[in-house]
């Protein structure tokens, strides 16, 4: 941080002295903030370098913080006029940032809703409000089904494409000891990991439901479809012939990494750590469809937005910077360096990217992905966790547990929207 400040100061000194001599070249300096994650910082450095080369009159300074401090620092800095001109935030925080007056809408002439609606994958529309977009992503994440190639081969099954095939393949890969204790699961399960997204946005929709109404302000999964989705999910672990166990090997991804799980649903951000796992031969395929071909996916993303601090020429520079970080070129760099998926079909759906063995299934999933507008993601996840626990630990019926979860989540949403 100190070195960044120093760099900023010396750059400012250089540019201001340059401005004295060359009055035509007006230098503008803008500040960009993101949280610290090695690959993201490297990628952003590359983007800034390219951007500055194309716009010699603009300097971009990047500052990054540990994730844990990020929210507090942003909140303290911007009202004090100290913070970033362009800031990165999780899509789920947008409401809070708008309500706190930390960010301003993107200009409608550069980022018209018609243009963004057409060029970006559809789930980005969660960032739209009336005639303006508040923020836009460079990269997005989605879910897919990871599988262990060795276990699949050993059981003699193919990577599944439908839910029925998935259950059958998982059954073939599940192993038990003499006492009936599961020692290898066909499929990992746990609402604490990514399964709450899979249940909410994928299974409920595949069973013919619509998990939320009214722009994610009304819970709508306490229906027949929700019931079917919950039965399907819980039955994987219950009954005489389970294909999974909740909490098996502590964490789903740990079981998969250890080669004790045949299949595992997870996000594109898991690719990096699986690549580093020695001795694990894995592949990935799109989330299984229903037998009639219905597919869905869940996507989340980090977005960039212009803060209320940026005014005048800094605002113009910030708009230019936003244009660059949402360009096709920037998205390809982000995919190559960070491994996160492009937010536009024009980059994602190229021959090379969409058919990539690793990224392809995730990118193809984006075309039919939904993005939950969370009020409090961990709170809403906790309700899903408890919904399953009431059934498995307390023997409650799925219908009752579903009703309790729906009611609790509705209350959480009502409280949130009442105060925002």
């Amino acid at each position: 941080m100190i070195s960044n400040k120093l760099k900023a100061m010396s750059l400012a000194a250089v540019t201001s002295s340059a401005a004295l001599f060359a009055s035509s070249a007006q230098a503008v300096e803008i500040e960009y903030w993101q949280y610290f994650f090695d690959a993201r910082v490297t990628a952003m450095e590359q983007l800034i370098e390219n951007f500055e080369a194309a716009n010699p009159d603009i300097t971009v300074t990047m500052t990054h913080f540990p994730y844990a401090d990020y929210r507090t620092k942003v909140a303290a800095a911007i009202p004090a006029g100290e913070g970033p001109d362009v800031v990165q935030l999780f899509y789920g925080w947008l409401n809070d940032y708008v309500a706190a007056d930390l960010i301003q809408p993107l200009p409608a002439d550069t980022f018209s809703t018609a243009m963004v609606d057409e060029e970006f994958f559809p789930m980005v529309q969660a960032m739209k409000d009336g005639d303006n977009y508040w923020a836009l992503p460079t990269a997005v994440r989605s879910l897919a089904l990871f599988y262990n190639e060795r276990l699949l081969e050993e059981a003699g099954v193919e990577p599944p494409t439908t839910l029925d095939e998935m259950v059958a393949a998982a059954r073939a890969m599940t192993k038990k000891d003499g006492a009936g204790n599961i020692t290898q699961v066909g499929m990992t399960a746990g609402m604490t990991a990514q399964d709450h997204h899979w249940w909410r946005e994928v299974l409920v929709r595949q069973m013919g439901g619509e998990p939320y109404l009214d722009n994610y302000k009304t819970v709508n999964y306490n229906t027949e479809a929700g019931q079917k989705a919950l039965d399907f999910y819980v039955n994987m672990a219950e009954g005489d012939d389970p294909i999974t166990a909740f909490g098996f090997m502590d964490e789903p991804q740990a079981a998969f990494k250890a080669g004790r799980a045949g299949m595992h649903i997870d996000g594109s951000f898991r690719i990096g750590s699986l690549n580093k796992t020695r001795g694990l031969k894995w592949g990935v395929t799109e989330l299984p469809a229903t037998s009639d071909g219905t597919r869905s996916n869940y996507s989340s993303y980090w977005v960039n937005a212009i803060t209320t601090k940026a005014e005048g020429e800094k605002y113009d520079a910030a708009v230019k910077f936003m244009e660059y970080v949402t360009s096709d070129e920037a998205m390809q760099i982000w995919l190559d360096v960070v491994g996160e998926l492009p937010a536009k079909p024009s980059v994602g759906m190229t021959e090379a990217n969409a058919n990539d063995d690793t990224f392809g299934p995730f990118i193809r999933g984006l075309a039919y992905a939904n993005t939950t507008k969370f009020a409090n993601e961990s709170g809403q996840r906790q309700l899903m966790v408890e919904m399953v626990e009431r059934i498995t630990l307390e023997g409650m019926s799925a219908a009752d547990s579903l009703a309790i979860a729906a009611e609790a989540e509705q209350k959480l949403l009502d409280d949130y929207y009442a105060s925002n």
Partner: protein
Amino acid sequence: MKIYQNLTIRQKQIVWAWAFLALPVLFYTVIRFYPTANAILISFQNWNLLGDRTWAGLENYQKLFADPVFWHVFRNTFVYLLLGTPVSLVVSFIIAYHLDKTRFMHGFLRMLYFLPFMTSAVAMAWVWRWFYQPVPIGLFNNFLAAAGIPQVSFLNSTTNALPSVLAPAIWAGLGFQVIIFMAGLRAIPKSYYEAAKIDGVSWWTVLWEITLPLLKPTIVFIVVFSSIGFLRIFDHVFNMTTGNPGGPLNSTKPLVLMIYETAFSSFDMGYAAAQTVVLFAVLLFVSLVQLRIMRDK
């Protein structure tokens, strides 16, 4: 300077005393009293860390007392206290009592008991978390399975989870309590025991009439100290149940963990501050009651 010279010696002593006290006073004001006062203030406001603070009156407290999760968590906190304090007190006394009489490898044994206290709570919690897992990775369940006994759900259970989390927490604090008890035992004058021996009193009477009454200051200290510890339990619970913080259906969630979650994952600072004020009141009340009950008459 003139004013200082005109002071009496007594007044000069006071000036110097305050000069030296100024640093800790300043420290406490800035680091302790100001944040405490601020927390009490925030408990009457709504604040999500980003926007302005707005007045909420008693809203946060009303919400708190109407929240079933809060009462569940409140109950858990007292279960930690009411199970943890007596168990750790009795176990540490028994260990200290016998260790005090043991000469063989005394130092080594004492070290073994003290070692868990020096170990990082985070590392310890994770090791125990893995001990408790079902087969194929859980140590305890692998033993059970090998012996042909059905598995026990330690952490993934609404009834077993809290004692399972409490056990390593008690074990971790044991070393410290054993050392304090041994110091207390050593401080009892030998002459009482010699007199008892001459009178031919039974072992039980010696323990009940001499050792325990004379250990009272030590017991008071340990009870107050460990009560505060169990009321504030956090690191063991948090690390043994990350992913599902507070265990299945909040079965292990203590008040401090609820405060942490409300503040730093729901960003509801006012509500979290109200919980903090309640915890503060409980801690104060429990400590005062204990000091009063166990005070020398």
